[in-house]
């Protein structure tokens, strides 16, 4: 059965390592924070200027001066730090953040990503996404395998304006975990009960399938 959004977030949470600093994008990526494996010390950075984000505030305890990059009210944990936007992107550009998780509209087999603009539609802007994908050593895309029209989002070549070039290392969808290497999507895991055939059918880009593809354990 295909994963829901929480399933995708749970699977990505398995990629976290102790001591990492992690930047989570808006949407599914934000959910990853809820599933940090027991015993791991992971700090979440938000590019608007905070390190050490905690859970959402209790009702009545919201502080307009304390938000994340999605403009949501948040809290911080002991040992947090606030800083300006230049310092925040110094952390990102300078590779001090070990993992970036973000959503995408398209990913290509060489790791290009498009997630900020659809020609002819209202352009909202790239926010911090271009800085994040240009700099992060380790980028995981969290997205659905297909778009609303049923077309694959894992492509030979992106059709939309790019956010970054040859930067995505891993994609986690409701169907599969795929690693991008040498110009192809390498199928690492499939969602419980999802067939290799379904993943093949829904992946337009070059797909490398090993003899045996294990199911995810969540």
């Amino acid at each position, binding site marked *: 059965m295909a994963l829901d959004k929480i399933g995708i977030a749970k699977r990505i949470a398995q990629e976290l390592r102790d001591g990492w600093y992690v930047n989570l994008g808006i949407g599914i990526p934000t959910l990853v924070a809820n599933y940090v494996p027991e015993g791991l010390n992971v700090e979440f950075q*938000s*590019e*608007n*200027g*905070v390190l050490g984000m905690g*859970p*959402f*505030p*209790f*009702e009545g*305890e*919201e*502080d*307009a*001066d*304390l*938000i*994340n*990059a*999605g*403009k*949501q*009210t*948040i809290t*911080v944990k002991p040992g947090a730090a*606030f*800083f*300006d*936007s*230049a310092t*925040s*992107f110094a952390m*990102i*550009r300078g590779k001090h953040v070990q993992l970036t998780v973000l959503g995408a509209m398209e990913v290509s087999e060489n790791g*290009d990503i498009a997630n900020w603009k659809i020609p002819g539609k*209202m*352009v*909202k*802007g*790239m*926010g*911090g*996404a*271009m*800085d994040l994908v*240009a*700099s992060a050593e380790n980028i995981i895309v969290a997205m659905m395998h297909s778009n609303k029209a049923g077309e694959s989002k894992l492509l030979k070549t992106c059709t939309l*304006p*790019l*956010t*970054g*070039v*040859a930067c995505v290392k891993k994609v986690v969808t409701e169907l599969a975990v795929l690693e991008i290497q040498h110009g192809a999507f390498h199928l690492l895991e499939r969602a419980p009960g999802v067939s290799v055939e379904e993943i093949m059918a829904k992946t337009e880009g070059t797909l490398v399938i090993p003899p045996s593809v294990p199911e995810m354990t969540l």
Partner: protein
Amino acid sequence: MNKVQPSIENALAGIKDGMTLMIGGFGLCGIPENAIKELVKMGVRELTCISNNAGVDNYGLGLLLQQQQIKKMISSYVGENDAFERQMLSGELEVDLIPQGSLAERCRAGGAGIPAFFTPAGFGTEVAEGKEVRIFNGKPHILEEALTADFAIVKAWKGDTEGNLVYKATAMNFNPMMAMAGKITIAEVEELVPAGTLDPNFIHTPGIFVQRIFQGAVFEKRIEQRTVRTR
């Protein structure tokens, strides 16, 4: 030489049609809300506004957009504003979209006398069009130039009579770099205190960057995305 302004009118005096303004804030967090309302009152037009976002329909820079006072926005994300969308699609409003980290660094560079720097952000995208590309450490980077403004308007939590500023939590965001990059920098503060009140070890924006300071009358501090958990 007194940086403390007797009124908001004095604080914003000299802002004229066609000028370039930097406006601090991220979303509605840490914006100089009193000064923005005053700009509406002043009716200055044809402004170029450098601000990470463009406010919402009825608050922040959205108020200036409603009155069609803005000719050009230089921002990284402008997704929360209908007036913006209408004016952009109709061609009334010019928009220059810049990656957020490049925007922050370009403001800092403008304030720091660094005319240009290389960054990897945007390489291979339309942001890089027309820009010099150079390889450093095996990786392509693009050359980005500094931004400055006729006036920078920033918002701080506390400020003293010397212009020293401190910000609260994530309301800091773009304010410190913009304070550096304004030819004239105006600081709107929640609390104006005498020199010597703030600990000199913990000043976010040293007063040298601030030419005028005033205490804002009302801080609504609207929340865009109120998210809470249950007890």
